[in-house]
C-alpha cells in the first residue's frame, strides 16, 4: 500500500480531475484539464470566482496550472490568464510568485490544485489586496 508520501502522480491527478468535475468544495473555484486528451495530466485550467465585498467581486479569473513530473512532491506552476492586480502576481505576465503564496511556499504533497486556488482566493480577501484597483474586466496576459 502506498504511504501518503508515495501516491503515484497520475493517481493523484486523476483524483483531482474527478473532484474538479464533481464540484468538490464550496463552488468558488473550479479546475480541470486544459485538454481532455492530455494523457500526461500536466496542463490544467483553473477558475477563481472573485470573492464578494472585495474589488474582485463578480469577476472570474482564469488561471493555468502546470503539474510537473514530480507532482505532488513539488508544487505546481501557477499563472493567471486573466489580468489581475494582486500582491504576489507578476504584473507583466500573471505568474504567481511561489514565495508569496503560502500553499506554494510551504507545499506539502497532500495539497492539491484546489488548495492553491482557494488560497489565491483567500489572498484576494486580505486587507492589503481587497481594494487594489483592477484592470478592466476581460483583459488577459498575452505572453
Amino acid at each position, binding site marked *: 500500500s502506498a504511504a501518503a508520501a508515495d501516491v503515484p502522480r497520475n493517481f493523484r491527478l*486523476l483524483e483531482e480531475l474527478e473532484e474538479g468535475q464533481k464540484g468538490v468544495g464550496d*463552488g468558488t473555484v473550479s*479546475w480541470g484539464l486544459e485538454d481532455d486528451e492530455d494523457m500526461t495530466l500536466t496542463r490544467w485550467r483553473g477558475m477563481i470566482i472573485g470573492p*464578494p*465585498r472585495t474589488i474582485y467581486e463578480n469577476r472570474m479569473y482564469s*488561471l493555468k496550472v502546470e503539474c510537473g513530473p514530480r507532482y505532488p512532491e513539488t508544487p505546481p506552476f501557477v499563472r493567471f490568464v486573466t489580468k489581475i492586480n494582486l500582491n504576489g502576481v507578476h504584473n507583466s505576465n500573471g505568474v504567481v510568485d511561489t514565495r508569496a503564496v503560502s500553499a506554494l511556499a510551504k507545499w506539502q504533497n497532500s495539497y492539491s490544485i484546489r488548495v492553491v486556488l482557494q488560497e489565491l482566493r483567500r489572498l484576494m480577501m486580505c486587507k492589503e489586496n481587497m*481594494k487594489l*484597483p483592477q484592470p478592466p474586466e*476581460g483583459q*488577459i496576459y498575452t505572453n
Partner: protein
Amino acid sequence: MAENSGTDPAVNTNADENAAKGGTIIMVTVKTPKDKEEIAISEDSSVAQFKEEISKRFKAKQDQLVLIFAGKILKDGDTLNQHGIKDGLTVHLVIKTSPKASGGSTSQASAPSPGVSSSNRSTAGAGNPPPASTANQSQGTGPSAAPAQPGNLLSGFGDLSNLAGLGMGSSNFMELQQQMQRQLMSNPEMLSQIMENPLVQNMMSNPDLMRQMIMANPQMQQLMERNPEISHMLNNPELMRQTMELARNPAMMQEMMRNQDRALSNLESIPGGYNALRRMYTDIQEPMFSAAREQFGNNPFSALGGSPDGSGAQPSRTENREPLPNPWGPTGSTATTTTTTSTSIFNSPGMQSLMQQISENPQLMQNMLSAPYMRSMMQSLAQNPEIASQVLMNNPLFAGNPQLQEQLRHQLPVFLQQMQNPEALSVMTNPRAMQALMQIQQGLQTLQTEAPGLMPKYIQMPMILIPGGIPGAPLSTGGGLPSETPPASAPTSTPAAGANPSQQQLIQQMLQMFAGGSQSTQTPEVRFQQQLEQLSAMGFINREANLQALIATGGDINAAIERLLGSQPS
C-alpha cells in the same frame, strides 16, 4: 472515473422538449455559491440551450449566467460534449448582477469597474482639485464638501454625483443616513475625524449608553435570546470598554481584524471547520448584520446578500461599533438651503420640506425617533447641557441668528427635561399626533396672517424651541395658545426674540401643560413612589440618585439598580 453516461430516455419526464434534440438526457448539477440545482439536459445540447434551462430554474436572465466547468468558462456556442460534461457532474454557475455577461474572454475594456471611473474623474477635470485628489476610489470626499458646492460642480464629476444625493437630491432622512454611512465606510479620514469629535467620544466612552443602544434594538434582543454568549459579551464591562477602544482606534481595529482573519483561515482548514464557520455565520452574523442594517439604514457591508461564504466571515465585525451618524448634521444641511433672516425660521424652505416630508411620511418620524441612538443621544444631551448647547449652537440653522441662540439657551434645560419625559417621546413617535400638531401649527399660522393683532410673534418663541429636526413638543405649545387668554401678555410689537419675562412664563406654562399630557401632573417622585421605596429597602439610600436612575430608565427597577451600581465605583 466510473461515470455512466447512459440514462434510460424513456424514464425522463420532460423528455419531450429535450428529446427533440436527440441523444440521452443527463442530470447535471448546477452549483452557485448559494444554491444547487439538478438540471436535466440532453447530452448533445449546446451551452446556450443549457443556459436556457438554467435561466428558467434560477430565475435569472440568460445573459447574466456564466458557466464554469473544470476551470473553463463555457461559451454559448460550445456544446456540453465538447467540455466533457456528463451525467452526474457539476457545473459552476455565477449569476452576474450587472448585465455584462461576458467573462474572461478577449480584450473588452469596457467594464464599469471603480478602477475605471477614477480615470473618468480626472478627465472630467477642471473644477475642483481637492475632491479629485483626495480619493482614488469613488465617494472620497466627505459630505462637508457637498453642501458647500452646489449642483453645477457636482454634475461635473461622474463619481461624486452620488454625493449630490446627500444634501441636494433626496432629502429623505433615512437616505441621508445611508449616504453618510457609506461615506464613512469608504473614507477612513472622515471616520477618524468623526471619532475625534468630542460628542461621539463622550457617547462611546459611556458603556451603559452603548449597551442600552444595542439592547434597544429588537433584533439584537432576539439574537441575544438565541445566543446567550452575546448578552454575556455585552454585559461584561471590560469587554465593552475594550471594544469601544477598538472602535475609537481604527488602527487597532485593523490589527484585531487581521488576527481574526488568520484565526479564521486556520479554523477553516481543519476538517469540519468550514461547516462550523458557516453555521456560526448564519447563526450570528446575519442577524447581526440585519440588525445593524436596520439601525443604520444600510448594511455597511453591501452585497452581503446572505452569502454563505464562511471563509470570509469575520465575527470580529460583530464587535465593530460604527460611529453613529450625526443626526443633527444631515438634517441641518437639508434645512439650510438659504439661511432666512425672517423671524420665523421654521418657515424657511428647507424646514418646510422637512416638515412636509415628516407629515407625509409619519413613519419617518417614528423611525427617526425610535432609532435607539436617538433616545440615548437625547439622554446624554440632557445630562450634559454644555454639549447640548454646543451642538445646537453649531447647528447651521441657528448660526445666523444670535437672538435665537439666546432664546435657545434659556429654553434648553426645560426642553431637555421635557425630552426625557416618556410621554413627550411617545407623542412624538405617534404619527397621528404629529399630524395633528402640524395641523395646529398651520392653523396658527393662518391665524397669524389673518389676525396679526391677536397673536403677534407668539408663534415664534414656541417654535424656536425646536432644534434640529425635532419639531415635536413645542408645536403643541402653539396649540396651548388659543386656550390661554390672548390678552394675557402684553402684545408688544417687539420681535419675539426679546426675552420678555411674561412671555417666558407663558411658555413655561404651556410646556408644563404639554408635559403633563394625559397623565395627571404627577412628578416623577410620586410616580416612582413604589420603586423608590423598593430601592431604599434594598439599601440604596441616596434618594436623589435613585430618582435620577428611575427617571432615566423609565421606572425599570432592575435597570435603575444597574445604573446605580455602575455609577458608584467611578
